[in-house]
């Protein structure tokens, strides 16, 4: 945000809740019924995966369920700006919230609002993490 889009003071709510350009903000639709100390986004949630994206090529599915444990999300006011500068929002939540973001023209550059590591199992490694390691192997110095 700061370097490519030139958004001065682009900030994450956890670092400065009063910053003028909050790119990462508290989730708009928190899970209503959740344990007392649980973050706003907790548990399994459905994500719609964008056709043609890297995420789709990895998942090979239009919808997936992922486990969340976080409070924040991308501020929707910045979606258009980042897409114009070469990013794709490749996964969306039930209300259209950005859940997976990837950078175009890059071998593997992907961010998620959920934690795939929470659902990985020895007999069922997470597909995103496998794709990340494959990309690392191909990029190996």
């Amino acid at each position, binding site marked *: 945000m700061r370097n490519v889009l030139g958004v001065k003071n682009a900030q994450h709510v956890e670092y400065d809740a009063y910053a003028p350009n909050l790119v990462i903000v508290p989730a708009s639709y928190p899970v209503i019924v959740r344990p007392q100390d649980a973050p706003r986004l907790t548990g399994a949630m459905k994500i719609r995966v964008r056709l043609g994206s890297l995420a789709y090529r990895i998942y090979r599915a239009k919808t997936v369920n992922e486990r969340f444990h976080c409070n924040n999300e991308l501020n929707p006011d910045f979606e258009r700006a980042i897409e114009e500068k070469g990013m794709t929002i490749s996964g969306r939540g039930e209300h259209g919230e950005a859940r997976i973001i990837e950078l175009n023209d890059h071998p593997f550059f992907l961010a998620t609002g959920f934690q795939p590591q929470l659902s990985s199992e020895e007999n069922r490694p997470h597909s995103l993490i496998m794709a990340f*390691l494959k*990309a690392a192997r191909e990029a190996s110095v």
Partner: protein
Amino acid sequence: MKNAVNIGLMGDFDPGKPSHIATNMALQHAADRLSLQLKVRWIPTPTLLSIDGQKTAKKMDALWAAPGSPYMSQDGVHWGIRHARENKRPFFAT
């Protein structure tokens, strides 16, 4: 193609954080499935503002911005993200 990968985890490792333990385990699950020898190095976020820390990060095949924000150094992680973007290094953030 090599069968070993060096993964840099940009984050302030805390064994009390389930997400950090899960990250290490999930990487091993995937590496085992792919028959890859895995080397994981947690890179404390403040060190990413130092020459030594950046040198370490540059040696990694790929970088992962670990869960568990706020980081001790947001600027350190930003350096890592920019390095990965500009140098086409695989980057993951969860």
